[in-house]
């Protein structure tokens, strides 16, 4: 893996400089991102909001190394993603990145325990028993460990997914609308879990959402519109977040 060269701030876990992303060509070209620079310091919980088509998902995909920017540079933990090979990106995902999805994305053939340990088995690493115990108690699914996804509620599945994202102690967890498919109770549970992970485990979390209530759990709120950051500020209440959204929407 490339070594970090000239990282501007060692405290900044994810750093993006002047990102742009263009889909299509010529007349039909769409700029999903038009010059975004942003840094995410460690141990903080950031929420990215924006209306549909604002580029918030694209930003997250690029930050996580799932998509490549048309121009600009992304660093994760000091590593420049620009020229990483597929193999290096794979390694990066194993070591430094955790994902939480809107649709949980658990493997239906595996039970909860196996799903949580999946990233470690893929990477060929031994699980840390204490960490695993702590995690399952934190997310509260000890009594569901041998259940398959089909036997669990949405909230339970998403809590398993949170544990899966944290099991490898990644540098950063990206959450893509983690509460999007949940009722308000389960939604609160999951968001509190993320909050807890940041506060108690020092985890860095970047969450994309269009739910103002979800955004109120974060320390910091970014709002995107038309591929640009139009707001970048500290934690807000859900009402304030809603107003912000209305102003750009």
């Amino acid at each position, binding site marked *: 893996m490339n070594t970090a060269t000239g990282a501007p701030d060692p405290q900044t876990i994810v750093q993006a400089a002047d990102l742009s992303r263009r889909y299509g060509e010529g007349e039909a070209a769409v700029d999903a991102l038009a010059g975004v620079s942003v840094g995410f310091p460690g141990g903080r919980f950031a929420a990215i909001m924006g209306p549909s088509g604002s580029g918030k*998902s694209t930003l997250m*995909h690029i930050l*996580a190394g*799932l*998509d490549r920017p048309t121009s600009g540079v992304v660093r994760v933990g000091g590593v420049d993603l620009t020229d990483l090979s*597929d*193999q290096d990106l*794979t*390694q990066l*995902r*194993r*070591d430094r*990145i955790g*994902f939480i*999805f809107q*649709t949980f*994305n658990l*493997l239906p*053939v*595996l039970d909860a325990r*196996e799903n949580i340990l*999946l*990233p470690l*088995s*893929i*990477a060929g690493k031994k699980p840390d028993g204490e960490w695993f115990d702590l995690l399952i108690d934190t997310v509260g699914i000890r009594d569901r460990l041998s259940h398959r996804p089909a036997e669990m509620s949405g909230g339970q599945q998403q809590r398993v997914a949170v544990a*899966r994202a944290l099991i*490898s102690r990644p540098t950063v967890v990206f959450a*893509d609308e983690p509460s999007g498919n949940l009722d308000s109770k389960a939604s609160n549970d999951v968001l509190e879990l993320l909050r807890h992970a940041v506060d108690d485990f020092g985890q860095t979390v970047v969450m994309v959402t269009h739910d103002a209530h979800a955004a109120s759990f974060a320390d910091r709120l970014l709002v995107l519109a038309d591929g640009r950051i139009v707001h970048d500020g500290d934690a807000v209440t859900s009402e304030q977040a809603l107003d912000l959204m209305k102003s750009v929407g």
Partner: protein
Amino acid sequence: MLPLVLRGFMQRKVRVVLTAIAIALGVALMAGTYILTDTINKSFASIFSVANRGNDVVISPTQNLGRETRSQTSPITDQMLAKVRATPGVSEAAGSIFTPGTFLDVHGKRLTNGGAPAFVASESPKRFESFKPVQGHLPLGPDEVAIDEQTAKRHTLKLGQQMIVAGSAPAKRYTIVGITRFGGGESFGGAGAAILTPTEAQRVVGLPGHFDQIEVAAESNPAHPVSANELRGRIRAALPATVDVRTGAQQAAKDTSDLESNLGFLRTFLLVFAYVALVVGAFIIFNTFSITVAQRTREFGLLRTLGASRRQIMQSVVYEGLLLGVVGAVLGLLGGLVLAPALNELFKAFGAELPHNGTVVETRTIVVSLLVGTVVTLLAGLPPALRATRVPPLAAMREGVEIPPRVLSARGLIVRLAIVLVIAVLLAALIGGSVAVSVVFAALWVGRLSARYRRGARPRRYRVVPALARGIGALVSWRGITGQLARENSIRQPGRTIITAAALTVGLALVAFVAVLADGTKATINQAVSRSFAGNLIVENSQSGNNEQGIPAVVAPALRRVPGVAGVAPIAFTEGRLKGSSSNVRITAIEPSTFGQVYRVEWKKGSNATLLGLGKDGTILTKSYADSKHLKVGQTISVLTPTDKHIALTVRGIASDNARLLGDLTITLPLAREAFGQRDDALNFVAYSQGASNAQVQPAVNRLLAASFPQTRSRTAAQFKQDQASQINTLLALIYVLLALSVIVSLFGIVNTLILSIYERTRELGMLRAIGTSRRQIRQMIRYESVITALIGGVFGLVIGVVGALLVTTLALSDSGYVQSIPVGTLAILLVVAALAGLLAAQLPARRAARLDMLQALASE
């Protein structure tokens, strides 16, 4: 990755089993073939070891033209036997006869043991005799016979009853005085054996003073011990080169290995069909994996975001292929154990019965079956596995992410083209090989007059390029929305439909190919017989396809005395080898004075006068043979005969013969008797006197044959054509049965594809149900879809088969007078069968689709 794969495997049992069956059937045929042929070989090995148990040394005629040709006049004589007896160290020596013959009951009905041959054998001294009487005794006088227990049981023959034995001499009645067993069995490996006294046996088979073999026992005096090998050396030194001298063990080994290579064609023949089924199975594996990889795009994307490398994704698919291959191969191997006896029954039903005691499963059978099944599955799953590696991690986030097409470098393109080419060539070789083998097999079965297409078809390449699926789909149109939807569904993923259909195409193309070839062969025979045969009757051995045995030479003179018969032309077949050549030439022997009257020779050089002037040093070549050896009229060739003589023959004429009655060489019958040792005729052509009607003459001929030569029968040209056609039909039926396996494999492919695509369309089906589509309509839609797929496969199969057959016959057989003919009726039936097969394949998937719970269907993502 492996535990994950195993987990998924166990949860998709239905799919795993359906897919595994696709490969298992091919493996089963392969394993069954090995098991059956090994069992047959082993059975014969034990038979031969029993037969040679009491023999220290065995003397048999040299087979200088290869094992196929047995010398018809044995060089083993009474004088030779006396010489052997005089050799120091010999305690006992006896000559014996063991030659094909015909057994009949007193009413003239053949006493057959299924399709196994029947032999006339001579009684031997006790220590050499392998047949032991279980009732009565061995024959003591010239009117006595002992019969094997199997024949006796099958035809309820009892001691004291009479039976008829016919060989080269006119048929004669014998009294049954003994019933024998061979070794531990009821018979000589299923073959019938009538044991006569040595002198009587010699008379019946037309070898007075001669034997087929001499058996020798060594002196057991402990004062002068002599080993079998030492004795063999002494006897070898005393005898001429026209005989082989072997120890008993050597003889048993030789007999066994001869038999194994004789039966080798059976193994090859069956293996070809196994390979075809495996190729079809590979199509299905490939298709199933392609579909499941497409369906699991999201899962692969997820695994990638969780840190799985491309390699791991590929491994997970490859492991799945490996597991599936092992499951399929093991199922196949077990299936082979069931199939081996079934294959034996199949051959029995088609009139070829071979001994098989127990079940011989060699290590080779297990290793090859498991290896081939696994490797084929693995290879077929490899392209989809590679495709799975191209799933981007982003697929975990979004619905409907397509797998990006691979950008090929020039090198990659070349590599890929090379792989496709290699596969195409392998496929073509397979198909061509199977065709060539079936033609060879046809020739072996349809062994007579016109059917001697021994080196008929050359393998031809043709590529299956099914590009017009849309067109065909549009052609097949139904009224109503279900039909329309079905049509749209089947062309929604044309690649998938085509590969599913292609599996069926392979089987049907071969069926059509063979059907066209067979129809043409029948037409060719009909035309050739009509054109060339100028006589009224053909007299032949009534055992169909048995031209080794022929008819006694004394039949022709007897026929000449029948009122209304103007002339009889005896014809015999033999073989020889040209000096400096390693392959045998087919030789036809004719009687110059009569042949011209009953056969229209198509002369290239010469005329019917050439026949009369042929003489014992002349020969007529077929045009194709003369062309291939660059021989001209007037040139002299040296030919080695089955009796070890080198004779010089001058080319007197060159003729074409589409009926293939004339061999590479045609010689006179007296020369064949004298120098080639051919004492029997193969056919007698009979011409009636002017004004004589068939209604009068044929019954008279039949009366003579029934009385004196019950192993023969007379056929008019029309009857003869009928016989040939029915023999071809028999062979055709056998090939159809074996190809049916491939068609069944492809049906599993249709079932698989339908189930997978229904699973994929769960939501859509739920929607259709929600807006008022009935279960019945859903079932109908799936059935239509299946029928469309089957018909696409069927139409392509028929077109490829027919075009392929026409191409092959045009290129390879046109100069041999092959008449092309297309069996339209058969092809139409095949298409209907394909449609019905599609309907059958749709049953399970249609029911599944109709059973889907509407709400659940709508809720599924």
